[in-house]
């Protein structure tokens, strides 16, 4: 295990950093795993509508054990609550909302992100089959695609790369990436460093990244 996945931001801090980019009134779709943590972030009075692939528009926090409504889950299968003004639609209408460009941002996990905006999150190397879920629809159609991932694999290989080695989820769509080392923007030729996590040096980030890193 490389050192870089233990330094810098925690998973919640990565999620916090991206959540602070959310603007008032946005419709947000959070992927399974770390992205879900974005809904824990305090972003002041900004109103966010959380949309889930299964047609829930306006869900709220995960409910504590014993208070769950077993008819209501988010895209990760967690039993969530509903916020006032919520509405439920069927799956085709839900993906209609996605495809018609009404999701202001989708936040997803990934195995790899390339500086040309490609990313890969549905198929691991050598696997037969994969897990696409709603990721390809969201990636192709959301107004912004934010990615959260550890900066390096467990064996220390970079996940921010020049070109994805794994089959991509969509091409040229990623707008912002949070890793444990900081906040990055794919710029085509490389990643622009927008922010370093505390205790992370530019040199360390550069060494851990598989593409050019352009300091802002």
């Amino acid at each position, binding site marked *: 295990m490389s050192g870089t996945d233990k330094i810098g931001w925690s998973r919640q801090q990565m999620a916090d950093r991206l959540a602070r980019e959310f603007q008032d009134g946005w419709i947000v779709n959070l992927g399974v795993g770390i992205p879900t943590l974005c809904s824990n972030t305090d972003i002041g009075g900004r109103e966010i*509508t959380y949309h889930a692939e299964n047609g829930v528009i*306006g869900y709220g926090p995960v409910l504590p054990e014993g208070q769950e409504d077993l008819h209501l889950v988010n895209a990760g299968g967690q039993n969530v609550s509903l916020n006032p003004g919520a*509405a439920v639609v069927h799956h085709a209408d839900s993906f209609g909302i996605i*495809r018609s460009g009404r999701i202001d941002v989708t936040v997803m996990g990934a195995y790899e992100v390339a500086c040309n905006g490609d990313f890969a999150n549905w198929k691991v190397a050598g696997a037969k089959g994969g897990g696409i879920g709603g990721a390809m629809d969201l990636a192709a159609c959301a107004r912004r695609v934010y990615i959260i991932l550890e900066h390096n694999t467990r064996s220390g290989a970079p996940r921010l790369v020049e070109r994805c080695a794994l089959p991509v989820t969509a091409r040229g769509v990623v707008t912002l990436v949070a890793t444990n080392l900081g906040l990055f923007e794919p710029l085509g030729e490389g990643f622009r460093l927008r922010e370093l996590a505390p205790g992370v040096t530019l040199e360390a980030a550069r060494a851990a990244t598989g593409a050019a890193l352009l300091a802002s």
Partner: protein
Amino acid sequence: MGQKSKVVASFAEAVADIPDGSVIAFGGFAAPGTPYNLIMALLAQGARDLTCIANTTGGAHQPRMPDLGMLVENGQVRKVVCSFTAPGRPTDVLPFTKYYEAGEVEAELVPQGTLAERLRAAGCGIPAFYTPTGVGTEIAEGRETRVINGREYLLEYAMPVDYAFLRAHRADAAGNLQFRLSQRNFNPLMAAAARHVVVEVEEEILPIGSLDPDHIHTPGIFVQRLVRIPPEPEGLWPVRRKERVR
């Protein structure tokens, strides 16, 4: 979500900023769901060079209620897109016809199901689809077709719109809408197809969260402006159809 109210005080305010050249879809099938009050406001507001989408141009029946034909008569319309550019019964007369025959307004005639599906496609991010409707007819002439599983289909494109003018029965302040009975018709499709949705609402607009999330016909995320319809005579309400114009 949606803690901010979308209620505006008047129909005039709701349509004040509609620019010339807009593409506007109008809900309604016969009387139910037709945004009479918003049409009146648009007549007064005066935007021109409009492309107007609706099932009909109206005006075939008495008493005549606000309709696309009035916008045409008022010189505001460049083009209409409808499933009737002539009346359904040849014995009826449409006020629109005179302007159309004189070449003062353009028209695109679209089968009703194709009109609905093109709006639905726009609202669902589907740029084009195939339909069996119209194959072998004049409306398919010169158009692209494709044989799928041995049957011929016509290629149709999505119909995105700038504004949708709707009439709903009930709404909460977040813009969640319920339509009553056949009032629903094109309204939810136009809401999803539009970048801006303006709704006249028949009942008192409810606090956010008052509507059952399972029974919302148009989610509030599609809606920007709501206006409560005042009682008659200030507000316009459907009236019983009396007789046909001959």
